[in-house]
């Protein structure tokens, strides 16, 4: 992990998205006061209920959408518009159905390195197709592939341009649980190999714990914001089959589920405070383990919202 003292790779400052009301009334603020930092090589997962603006934030980071206020800086430069520096994996895989697997990946490679000759583009694309285990299917059209294979092509395409940062919008949301598990492990391996910086949206708590270094929890919209950040210090390399045996696994999991079930709604009070600022509460697994053990007679039961623990109060609230 990168030292927290180092300059953050991605810095998001005071991001907000405000829509004018269609009926002419008050404007609708989807989210505001969104601040966070991502260090190089860090894997950050964001979760929250639908409508809190997660996807909009991702699109702003990608440069596909613009914020109403606030700034995004990556590598010291302001993000304005899409760039090859940020690869995007879309939930709908977004492969071009008239191109084969190889052509889809080559299209990206050729966009990244327009001067490369055909052979070099093809070799480079093939390397990433092999990386996601699709060797032998490179001449198939997307319609001949299963959902999981299509998403693998999407992953290969995003990695093939060797972006400085990878953005993933619920990449496995449309897959069945088994396929999802397999691809998550592959992604884990590829990210470890490439030291990729990743920002991922997910609704799957287990996926967030398995993959990420940091889990950001968003409160419900309107006026959504990042309410809590959980540092996921579970040791790497992680394995899907063994990760739940880690002592910190269930405390983290329960904390996340608990947030989504009840605490995500309670941040309404926060936003009404006139001087509400933007620092989310940061949790470390050690704290969670402590509260977990004190409130929890047995595993796998969601604890009541931890009350009275000193680390629960909201900073600056």
């Amino acid at each position, binding site marked *: 992990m990168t030292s927290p003292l180092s300059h953050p790779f991605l810095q998001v400052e005071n991001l907000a998205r405000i829509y004018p009301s269609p009926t002419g009334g008050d404007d609708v603020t989807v989210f505001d006061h969104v601040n966070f930092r991502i260090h190089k090589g860090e894997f950050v997962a964001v979760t929250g209920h639908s409508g809190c603006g997660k996807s909009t934030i991702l699109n702003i980071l990608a440069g*596909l959408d613009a914020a109403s206020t606030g700034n995004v800086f990556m590598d010291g430069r302001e993000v304005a518009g899409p*760039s090859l520096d940020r*690869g*995007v994996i879309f939930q709908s895989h*977004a492969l*071009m159905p008239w191109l084969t697997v190889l052509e889809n990946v080559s*299209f990206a490679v050729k966009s990244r390195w327009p001067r490369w000759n055909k052979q070099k583009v093809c070799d480079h694309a093939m390397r990433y197709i092999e990386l996601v285990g699709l060797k032998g299917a490179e001449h198939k059209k997307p*319609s001949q592939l299963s959902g999981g294979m299509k998403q693998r092509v999407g992953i290969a395409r995003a990695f093939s341009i060797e972006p400085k940062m990878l953005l993933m919008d619920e990449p496995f949301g449309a897959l069945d649980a088994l396929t999802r598990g397999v691809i998550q492990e592959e992604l884990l391996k590829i990210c470890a190999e490439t030291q990729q910086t990743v920002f991922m949206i997910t609704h799957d708590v287990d996926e967030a714990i398995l993959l990420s270094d940091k889990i950001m929890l968003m409160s419900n919209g309107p006026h959504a914001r990042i309410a809590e950040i959980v540092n996921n210090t579970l040791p790497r390399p992680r394995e899907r089959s063994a990760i739940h045996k880690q002592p910190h696994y269930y405390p983290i999991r329960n904390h996340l589920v608990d947030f989504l079930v009840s605490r995500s709604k309670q941040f309404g009070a926060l936003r009404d405070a006139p001087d509400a600022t933007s620092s989310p509460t940061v949790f470390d697994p050690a704290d969670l383990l402590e509260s977990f053990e004190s409130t929890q007679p047995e595993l796998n039961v969601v604890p009541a919202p931890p009350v009275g623990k000193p680390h629960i109060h909201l900073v600056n609230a």
Partner: protein
Amino acid sequence: MKTRLSLNQKSTLLSLVLFGVILLVWQLATLPQADTVAAGVDPEYAALMGGGGATAASSFPTPAAMGQTLWDKLSDPFYDNGPNDKGIGIQLAYSLVRVLGGFFLAAMVAIPLGFVIGNSRVIYQAVDPYVQVLKPISPLAWMPLALYTIKDASASSIFVIFICSLWPMLINTAHGVANVRHDWLDVSRTLEVNPLRKAFRVILPAAAPTILAGMRISMGIAWLVIVAAEMLVGGTGIGYFVWNEWNNLSLTNVLFAILMIGVVGMALDSVFGVLSKRVAYQE
């Protein structure tokens, strides 16, 4: 043992039966009739009018006569004995050249223009009223204007083909381009694909099935219109041939021309059928 026929075999069989029934009805309808001459009409008068004799043949061709014509015409399709006697191949070639000429001119205008219109909401809405007014005009209504301004009969018929092929291609191209899936455009934006490459590698293949459907409709209409246009301007072409044979009172030749128009039209359509299969994609 009873063998089951495949779907194809069944439909082929039924097709042949239908063909037989049509021939039979045709044969029966054109049988020489003994009492063609109505009772009470002076036989001498009837003879003067050309209906003389006890067994007057129908002036509508029989299937056998038709078959004979078919054989004769098709065995020598490219003869040229002056302006009023050319082989069917030559006449069809004239018509095809005009249709293809007008059609490709229209494609060269409609597809780029459709791209521009489909890419911009503002231009789309600005141009839409003009298209809506111009589209329902019968292409033949342009003929006097074309003859007056172009002053050449053959070029005028090409212009008429141009104007009737334009609208379906323009509308379909604009529609196809405007409805390219957002995901694909987002992908090309994140890959910083330049506009020209985006147009040819993303938008064009994405919209190709819609564009080709428009071209197919245009070609169908163009082939319908050329017959009427050539009847008006005369000189050469399959439309002129039909009109000329009507003036010759040769229903056999008229029927033959009708059959040829159908066959060529079918061939043109199936070319576009093959092309649309080639650009089709399955999501």
